[in-house]
């Protein structure tokens, strides 16, 4: 039996259990890895219809005060100045070395900013951010326990959501958000997600979690989807996962995330000096996507990767793609060996299996655009 002592629960916990979900410890929370539907079917539902994910384990920091934009510009690498009210952006918190403390979303409201961070990194990110507050007039609040978060994802998500709200979702652009009511509940809704499909994320108060769940989940609405399918969906879409594809030993340029680094945004930020040095030279390794050439084996996170006889990296993310019906994954290869079609080997529990570099993303779904 797994021990569940000290694990937190989201406001949707009882609903998951009543639906027969398999609950597992994840980032300090008891989370549903799958429902009786099973990961493969759950994955297909999001690719073709509507899936609903409880992602309330994610962390949220609220930043208020006159210097809020300058402060978030200091602790993240993307440009908060380019963000208008009602917009969100993908960004990252970096170390002095220019490697990842975490990746995050930054939301700009009229009177505040909100950072959304990975559940596993909430405490680390919080102390990193708080430690850089000196001399700046802002107020920081870790509101992670006061926010419930549901992701409604899939090509049919807009139709469902529009039936529940007066907000005009047809004109709500990718990485934009609006505040209002959904199913009669005060919340804000952003056109964001982690699946490669069109979809929305709904931020609301925990005490209204259950009512919102029943508004979006059920016959003719969305199906509940667990963390298992969340992982296979994001991998197919080529989205990095902190702890696998990115961590405090990798930088944004290597990870293919140079587009979120704004060296010239007119504000210094943690990691900037190191990234300028990285950019002055060519990066020596690059995150690539691959598929296994043979059937029958799945390269998984942590397996050794060889280019010729030389061990060059580990499998960062690896798994079976329900859409492509083959094993796929990511790894860092020397930058001179990253062209699609490049062959290399993966040690799958003692057996060297051939893999081939393919272009990311593995699959392009109904997501609006980047």
């Amino acid at each position, binding site marked *: 039996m797994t021990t569940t002592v000290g694990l937190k629960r989201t406001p949707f916990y009882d609903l998951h259990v009543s639906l027969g979900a398999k609950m597992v410890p994840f980032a300090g929370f008891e989370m549903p890895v*799958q429902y009786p539907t099973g990961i493969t079917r759950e994955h297909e539902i999001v690719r073709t219809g509507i899936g609903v994910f409880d992602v309330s384990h994610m962390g949220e920091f609220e930043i208020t005060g006159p210097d809020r934009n300058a402060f978030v510009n200091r602790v993240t690498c993307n440009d908060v100045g380019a963000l208008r009210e009602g917009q969100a952006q993908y960004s990252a918190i970096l170390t002095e070395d220019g490697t990842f403390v975490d990746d995050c979303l930054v939301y700009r409201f009229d009177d505040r900013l909100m950072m959304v961070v990975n559940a596993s990194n909430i405490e680390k990110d919080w102390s990193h951010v708080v430690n850089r507050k000196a001399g700046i007039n802002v107020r920081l609040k870790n509101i992670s326990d006061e926010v419930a978060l549901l992701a409604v994802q899939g090509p049919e998500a807009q139709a469902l959501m529009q039936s529940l709200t007066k907000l005009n979702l047809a004109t709500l652009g990718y990485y934009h958000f609006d505040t209002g009511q959904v199913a009669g509940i005060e919340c804000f809704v952003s056109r964001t997600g982690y699946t490669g499909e069109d979809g929305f994320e709904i931020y609301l108060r925990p005490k209204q979690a259950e009512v919102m769940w029943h508004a979006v989940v059920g016959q003719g609405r969305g199906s509940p989807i667990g963390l*298992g399918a969340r992982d296979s969906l994001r991998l197919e879409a080529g989205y990095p996962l902190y702890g696998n594809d990115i961590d405090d030993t990798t930088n944004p340029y290597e990870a293919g995330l140079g587009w979120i680094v704004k060296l010239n945004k007119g504000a210094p930020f943690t990691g900037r000096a190191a990234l300028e040095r990285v950019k002055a030279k060519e990066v020596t390794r690059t995150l690539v996507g691959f598929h296994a050439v043979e059937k029958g084996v799945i390269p998984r996170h942590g397996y050794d990767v060889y280019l010729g006889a030389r061990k060059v990296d580990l499998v960062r993310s690896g798994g*079976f793609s329900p859409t492509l019906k083959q094993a796929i994954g990511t790894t860092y290869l020397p930058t001179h060996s990253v062209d699609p079609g490049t062959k290399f080997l993966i040690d799958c529990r003692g057996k060297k299996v051939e893999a081939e570099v393919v272009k990311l993303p593995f699959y392009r779904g109904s997501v609006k655009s980047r």
Partner: protein
Amino acid sequence: MSKIPDHLHYTEEHEYVKPTDEAGIVQVGITDYAQGELGDVVYVDLPAVETKVGRMEVFGTIEAVKAVSELFCPVAGEVVEVNQALEGDPSLVNQDPYGEGWMIKLRVKNTAELDRLLTASDYAQHIGE
């Protein structure tokens, strides 16, 4: 509760042995409990016919979306047939583990070994049901 048919033999590693109509030939697969724990099966790697396998030796590998597991041979014997259908549709292991989701048929070397395996009630106790 998972299904644990009465007339089968079981291992602590969650394989089962099912007698066939032919004397000395048994069918081997994984239990309903095991398929539930593994989740959606995507590949089953099985040995060639005529492979000789010892008792509790690895005879194959099963890859599920979230897990990978070795397959242990409950009794020593020679593989006389493998379930080719699993190559095209590995989800048969999830849908019907004791029927269409079987893995290999084995000519048992020493039928006395069958008595060393768990009974249905032993196995139920082993998995806490």
